[in-house]
């Protein structure tokens, strides 16, 4: 997916694809297209000498770089909170967002028969409580998950919650969306996004090493870091 890396490392056989990061086989639910990518890749096994680097230049049937003009989150939220100084109010706001999203999250699970939520082992209520408390009183928080440090525990819980929001947002297969559409909604129009940005701002300057090490690249995606203090 990063052709120049393959050129430098020279694996035995490689197929260079033009797809965005996160989609090595092109697009979801495009069976024939995925088969074509896979078959083209496996055919390289029959080459008689190498290293082999060939290009797959087709694009998936759906233009994955353009969101649908019709996409919108299936739920209308109140605008994100302005005041992030009261943990209980933040908790209530996040709880309301997750409660409003839950029917759509469950719809997504029915439609796609799977979910990425659950890595942290916590419920959404437990996660929003912890995140609210971490934002307002970070120095007095204990690691939320047994056996892992504060930063790793926060990361797993935050990722779970982002997956919950995202899966709910894309619950309707008939409403096409791009990942950027959904990301802009999550990070720009929800209290969750605002809270996670604020936590990243704090973590970049804090003394807690397990938070700080994750803050640089693993808390906020690069295309949303313009919302943060440090970019």
């Amino acid at each position, binding site marked *: 997916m990063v052709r120049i890396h393959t050129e430098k490392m020279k694996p035995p056989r490689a197929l260079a694809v033009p797809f965005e990061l996160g989609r090595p*086989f092109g697009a*979801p639910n495009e069976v024939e297209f995925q088969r074509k990518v896979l078959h083209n890749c496996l055919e390289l096994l029959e080459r008689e000498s190498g290293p082999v680097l060939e290009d797959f230049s087709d694009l998936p049937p759906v233009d994955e770089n353009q969101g649908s003009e019709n996409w919108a989150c299936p739920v209308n939220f109140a605008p994100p909170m302005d005041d992030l100084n009261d943990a209980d109010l933040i908790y209530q706001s996040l709880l309301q967002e997750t409660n409003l999203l839950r029917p759509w999250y469950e719809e997504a699970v029915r439609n796609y028969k799977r979910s990425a939520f659950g890595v942290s082992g916590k419920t959404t209520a437990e996660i929003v409580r912890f995140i609210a408390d971490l934002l307002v009183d970070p120095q007095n928080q204990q690691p939320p998950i047994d056996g892992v440090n504060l930063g790793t525990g926060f990361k797993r819980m935050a990722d779970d919650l982002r997956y919950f929001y995202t899966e709910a947002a894309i619950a309707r297969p008939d409403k096409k*969306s791009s990942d950027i559409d959904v990301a802009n909604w999550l990070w720009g129009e929800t209290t969750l996004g605002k809270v996670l940005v604020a936590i990243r701002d704090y973590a970049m300057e804090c003394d807690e090493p397990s938070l700080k090490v994750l803050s640089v690249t693993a808390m906020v995606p690069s295309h949303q870091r313009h919302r943060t203090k440090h970019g």
Partner: protein
Amino acid sequence: MVHISEMPEHLAKALINQELPVYESTPWTDLKSLKESRIALISTAGLHRSVDSPFVAGAGDYRIIPDEWDMDDLVMSHVSTNFDRTGFFQDLNTVFPIDRLHELDEEEVIGSVASRHYSFMGATPPHLMETVARDLAGLLKEDEVNAVLLVPV
């Protein structure tokens, strides 16, 4: 995340200019025909069964994905926030083409599918994965795998 060409310039440069391992040579094994292949998938997407421990940055380990497992159970605990996951949420085959592989097996395009597949988490320095990768090669041989599809994310 869109294509590298649409990343902020400093991030695209950092990705393109990332320090890479240098190999003296490229190993090569002949496989005359796909019909002779027994194929395992190895992903770097940080995939694992819901019952498995999540990946931890820098550990360099892998998770086992038995071929007979209910693949709808797989989750992703990759630490990076910089690649799209909506494709994975909707269809596992976007990152781990296990159904497509089974179809090719049923159609006798390939010889067979391995008993076990594996996932590492990328964003790990390669030298941290070398020891376990060598161990994994032994497991693949035990399973009579003669071809591996390494799938990035």
